[in-house]
């Protein structure tokens, strides 16, 4: 008899007895504070993490598998020529300020995004739009100039959420959307608080009453706050070495998933000798991706042979196209006239993955007679200036976190200085192709062209290292889009 109260007391002390009701508050730790809360006027991922589908909603959304799902549009039809999209809107949707949502808001939001003075970071999403018609409050008809395969997919991004004409100007500081959470407060430098929207058009959809996003830049401090119970979840942490240590702790769920971020060591394809595909291929042959991932990211992350996310259905494994083969690398360098060696630099930003990868690349390339010198730079400010704009570099390394961005290799002004008519034709064809299967086949073709031509050293897919309280359910394991969707998150006892 004595044992039982003792055991009970111990359980209480250990906090293991079930609570009376499941918790309805959530504290999420994000590494970067958003510079504003309007995803339609600036690019930072941090804005999307706080606002996308939590606060703001688009006509459609992407689900956790990256598939397009209806949201403010309950259904749509695409004309056989692929030029007209007719959306039927949800009924009874209200903005957080109480005003009703209808087709005029959709027209306003998209016209604002494509206006001449628009500062939308993904203005090209709206470039194909020819006209937006609103035959009635519940219908929007969008006419395109040309068929656009990924039009619906892009409408699921944060850049295409629907904002109201009355409140759009102030969304950066006081966001008003249609989402399941409303903006409550923003203590700048510290946290943003959201509370449940009682008038949400899908009643009962969210279980949380409030969500706090706390901005903690230092991964050690993030983990300390998690261990101390000050935060409940770190959806995506940047310190793989810390992450590995959390696996043993039963209090936490630890998930290594995928993001849409490709870590690539971009080459200046217009600069000699990197205009020679033999040199580029030789550099790729010198790299052992597995060892690189081990050293740069504690073994988390999937090797890639091209610029495409393994999450995507159109992904093809191209890691074998230019595999690790130092002998071949040396032979190719000799053939290109660099048998006695090659000296080059890598402009390396301050992110730990970048500097570690650069060090490993230096070691790997030295084995084939390439002297790679690390030149530090600062991301984003200095890097954008030196590498992206002035293209003053040999090699650099960054993660390209935008989903489905293989078309950057077909952009003339992009920092790779890569010009391939063959690739441009395939990418243009993919953009025009409305049929999904045919479009994916075009992407596969583009992936193979890049894998063979090596405009950049394709290294690995940036993983999403998530850790959260074991009693928390509904968090995303992968990031098919940069986000921190908490609309399906709940606590279990």
């Amino acid at each position, binding site marked *: 008899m004595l044992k039982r109260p003792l055991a009970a007391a111990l359980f209480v002390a250990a906090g293991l007895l079930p609570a009376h009701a499941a918790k309805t508050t959530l504290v999420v730790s994000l590494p970067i504070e958003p510079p504003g809360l309007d995803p339609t006027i600036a690019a930072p991922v941090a804005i999307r993490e706080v606002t996308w589908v939590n606060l703001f909603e688009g006509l459609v959304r992407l689900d956790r598998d990256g598939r397009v799902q209806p949201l403010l549009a309950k259904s749509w039809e695409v004309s056989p020529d692929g030029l007209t999209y007719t959306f039927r809107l949800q009924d009874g949707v209200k903005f957080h300020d109480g005003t009703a949502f209808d087709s005029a808001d959709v027209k306003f939001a998209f016209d604002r995004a494509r206006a001449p003075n*628009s*500062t*939308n970071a993904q203005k090209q999403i709206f470039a194909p739009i020819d006209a937006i018609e609103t035959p009635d409050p519940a219908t929007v008809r969008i006419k395109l100039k040309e068929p656009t395969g990924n039009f619906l997919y892009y409408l699921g991004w944060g850049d295409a959420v629907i904002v109201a004409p009355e409140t759009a100007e102030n969304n950066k500081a006081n966001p008003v959307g249609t989402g399941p959470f409303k903006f409550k407060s923003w203590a*700048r430098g510290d946290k943003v608080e959201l509370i449940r929207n009682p008038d949400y058009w899908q009643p009962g959809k969210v279980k949380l009453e409030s969500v706090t996003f706390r901005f903690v830049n*230092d991964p050690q401090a993030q983990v300390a706050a998690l261990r101390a119970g000050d935060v409940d979840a770190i959806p995506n942490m940047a310190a793989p070495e810390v992450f590995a240590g959390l696996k043993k702790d039963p209090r936490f769920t630890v998930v290594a998933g995928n993001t849409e971020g490709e870590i690539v060591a971009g080459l200046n394809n217009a600069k000699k000798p990197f205009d020679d595909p033999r040199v580029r291929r030789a550099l790729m042959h010198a790299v052992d991706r597995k060892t690189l991932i081990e050293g740069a990211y504690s073994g988390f992350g999937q090797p890639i042979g091209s610029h495409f996310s393994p999450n995507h259905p159109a992904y093809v494994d191209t890691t074998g196209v230019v595999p690790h083969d130092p002998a071949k690398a040396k032979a190719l360098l000799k053939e290109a006239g660099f048998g006695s060696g090659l000296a080059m630099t890598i402009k390396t930003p301050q992110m730990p993955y970048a500097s570690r990868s650069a060090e490993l690349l230096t070691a790997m390339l030295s084995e084939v007679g390439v002297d790679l010198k690390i030149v530090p730079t600062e991301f984003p400010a200095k890097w*954008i200036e030196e590498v992206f*704009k002035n293209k003053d570099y040999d090699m650099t390394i960054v993660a390209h976190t935008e989903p489905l961005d293989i078309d950057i290799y077909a952009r003339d002004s992009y920092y790779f200085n890569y010009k391939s008519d063959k690739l441009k034709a395939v990418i243009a064809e993919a953009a025009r192709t409305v049929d999904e299967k045919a479009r994916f086949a075009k992407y596969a073709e583009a992936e193979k062209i890049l894998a063979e031509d090596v405009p950049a050293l394709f290294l690995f897919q940036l993983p999403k290292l998530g850790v959260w309280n074991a009693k928390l359910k509904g968090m995303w394991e992968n990031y098919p889009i940069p986000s921190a969707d908490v609309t399906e998150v709940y606590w279990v006892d």
Partner: protein
Amino acid sequence: MGGLDGRPGDSAASRPLLRLIILRFASLAITLVAVAAAIFLILEVLPGDPAAIMLGTSAREDTLAALRHELGLDRPALERFVLWVGGLLQGDLGTSITYRMPVSALVADRLAITIPLSLLAILISTAIAIPLGVLAAANRDRGADRSVLVFSQLGVAVPNFWLGILGILVFSTALGWLPAGGFPGWSSGLWPSSKALVLPAFALALPQAAVLTRVTRSATLEVIGADFVRTARAKGLSERATLRSHVVPNALIPVATILGLQLSFFFGGAILVENVFNLPGLGRLAYQALAQRDLVVIKDVVLIFSGLVILVNFAVDLGYLVLDPRLRSRA
């Protein structure tokens, strides 16, 4: 002027004070103008386009141009400088490029953390350093002295951000006594807010306390050997009384100088410590603004830091007057 009311004691003390205040304010104004011009020039040549940072690598050229226009970055440099300084003279710090809100509001919130944090740190640092330094000097080359020297050597070697992480591991993660970071806001009450500042203040203070301990020790040793101290002892004053009323007051003058320098250092150290503890103070604001190239905020924060440092030096000079009666009577 102060002597007009007929109290003779006043005039001697207040005249140098008044002159000091006028001189200080003049130097404050000149320094601030120089700092303003310097920081503006530095930011002009510093690589980084705020518009490109805000809009990312997929932004089209027309979108970038629209944002640059909205932010006023397309105006000539001289015009921007004049607008900025003109605004400052009217008390308008401008609008933050990233937050798009008035910098004055941002800064006011941040100062409400950084100033209490720095003051708390200096309090802790002096409370540790002065007794330890005097103790070490009074027990020169004995056990107490050696222990103090080991402590101070350690303190000088340990960086404050590392100390901060260690403090979090021990007092937040393991013991759960103090929050691991963040700030609940002064509106949540004095105790929860102060609690959030305890660990960061110690992290800031301990390395400085180590330096200050060494300074106190050597200053005290210097005074202990002085003639007037021997005289005091010869008068029959006890060792303790000699220390208290003759040695320590005289040793405090160099200590005050270092203390003044340190308070300036605390504002700088706050950048690291506020980042480790995730405190939304002025240091963190400066750090974020620099990474984001929020030119308006960087310029203002650097000016404010410079102003604070000058004010602190002014306070130290006033401190000399209190500590050293000779400075008062010399006038």
